[in-house]
């Protein structure tokens, strides 16, 4: 007959004892350049890089697209709105609000990424 297993003390996790388990704020990991700190930083950089690349490619597609569209479909130039040829209207006027909207979106998104990062590294 085997001996009964030694008694163990089971605590509910929501007690002081459990909460005081060794906690290292993520911010310290970054400070000390540990692997974990690197991971936190890389995640921020990666999210910001993804945003940057998507915005730059949007601009590229938008501008190159406009330029190619006018090249392959020259009859667009004959379309007039309010007496102004469509290409002039697009490039002289309509493109600007689009650029402003993209800028606003970029800033909002970048700030959101940074807030998420700050919350993450401050959590204990």
């Amino acid at each position, binding site marked *: 007959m085997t001996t009964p297993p030694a008694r163990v003390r089971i605590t509910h996790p929501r007690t002081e004892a459990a909460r005081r388990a060794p906690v290292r704020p993520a911010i*310290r990991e*970054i400070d000390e350049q540990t692997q974990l700190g690197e991971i936190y930083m890389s995640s921020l950089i990666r999210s*910001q890089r993804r945003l940057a690349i998507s915005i730059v490619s949007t601009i590229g597609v938008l*501008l190159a697209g406009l330029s190619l569209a006018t090249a392959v479909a020259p009859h667009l130039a004959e379309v007039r709105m309010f007496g102004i040829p469509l290409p002039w209207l697009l*490039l002289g006027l309509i493109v600007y609000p689009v650029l402003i909207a993209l800028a606003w979106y970029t800033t909002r998104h*970048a700030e959101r990424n940074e807030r998420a990062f700050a919350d993450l590294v401050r959590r204990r």
Partner: protein
Amino acid sequence: MSSQPADIAAVAVVGVATVVAGSFGLRRARTTGDFYVASRVVSPRWNAAAIGGEYLSAASFLGIAGLILAYGFDVLWYPVGYTAGYLVLLALVAAPLRRSGAYTVPDFAQIRLGAPFVRGTASVLVVVIGWLYLVPQLQGASLTLSTQTGAPTWTGGLVVCAVVLVAVAVGGMRSITFAQALQFWLKFIALLLPAFVLIAVWQHRGDTVGRGYPRAPEHTVVSVNVATTVRVQAAETLDVDGSMDGAPASGPLRLAPGTHRIGAHTSVVLERGDVVPIVTSLPAQRTASWLRPLGSGTDHPLYASLSLIIAICLGTMGLPHVLVRFYTNPDGRDARRTTVVVIALLSAFYLLPTLYGAFGRRYVPDLLLTGKTDATVLLLPERMIGGDLGVLLGALVTAGAFAAFLSTASGLTVSVAGVISQDVLRRSRERGRPQRIRSFRLAAVAAIVVPYLLSLPSQHLGLAAVVGLAFALAAATFCPLLVLGIWWRGLTDVGALAGLIVGGVLATAAVLTTIVVRPDHGWSAALLAQPAAWAVPLTFVTMVGVSVATRARVRRDVGLVMVRLHAPEPVVAEIAALAHTTRA
């Protein structure tokens, strides 16, 4: 009412206002930091207007409208690119660059790579780009003053040099921050008010743009000061006084279709409805083709448009005076918010040059005869409106143009001088503050006098074209350095150096060939005139390739640099506090 006194008064007011704003800032310029970058405490709204004020140069204020008159639709890519460039800057570099805490690109190279030789190469490039960009500003000033007041062509540039040196010497960057912000609004209003009147006049007259070759709208006397070759579209009789095709002429002269040589100091009279002979350096195109995309009459227009877009979008982040402005933001978040405001301000401004260019085709086509289309904006108010109102609005436009030269020239002078005094007069770094400021003032003189001398023999080059070359060089060198430095850990000092050299040499060679040899046909001309599309990718490939090959040279502490570039300031402050408590 003659326009001359009004124009001279306008120039004087702008010049005096700039110097006064400069001395006003003097009282607050206390430390070297104040002197260079306004101690980074300029509020985002002021800063955005200042960036706009500094950025809208002679090329934007005069050049775009002139190019539109001459080339048509394809030129619309310039203002779109100038604005989109800030969007690229916002997405790729605005916040990290501000967080790096560098004053200039050489500083950034030092912080990111820690190699003095990359810093040195970057310094040389800052000076070259700055000078390339200053030349057209001074050219524009000379053109404006001689068009509006008949002054010799070297005076306008000299006036700008003098005002900039006084303003910069007494106040440094802080003073010009306020001056720049005011100048943005001055430039905007100087184009906006006359534009309203021009639209009203145009609506009232009910004029339309024809589809054929541009015709003179009224009796116009064109003075040709230097010998010019023009192309006549259809046989016509013009009143010529001077010499034509090598023979003296006085009175009506029958001109056959084809090219004709107009001698120096000749006046040509165009009557209402006469088809304007067009200088051979500009395309002779019917307005129907002028209206169409890719109808500009240059070779390979699609390649030219795309390469131009690349140069401007990627070059903006590399312009010395644009970069230095970002350090006056309090932190990275504000740097981004400032950029959004800048994009909105530029968008509003750039609606106007297009309007002036289109009106120019209808009302001042005689500029096509001399090729001085950069004067379009200056001449339109007087020609279209006339009378005292026309003179006043013309003076307002002249004031705006001078604001454009002064603001861009002073911004560039400060940033080029900063680099010269820090990296060329290197020893001054160890000396005290008075010596450092003295060396900065000395450097400012070098920063603007050299481009002034260069501007004298290059009057024939279009403003926007020279500025385009500066953008191409910036795009081919600093853009890859900044983008890879910020987003890729693997960049090494040797890789950066190789890239800067490859991009710098290729773009400079293309620029020089375009300016000196002036090839005007075929693919080689198109590739050289717009080098960005091939030079930028080559630089990226070189930087990445050489960096990978020299992998061992990646900084050991690159992680820390990345934290500094990308972590929001509050978090970095906490890290610093933490480091302090643990190590104390």
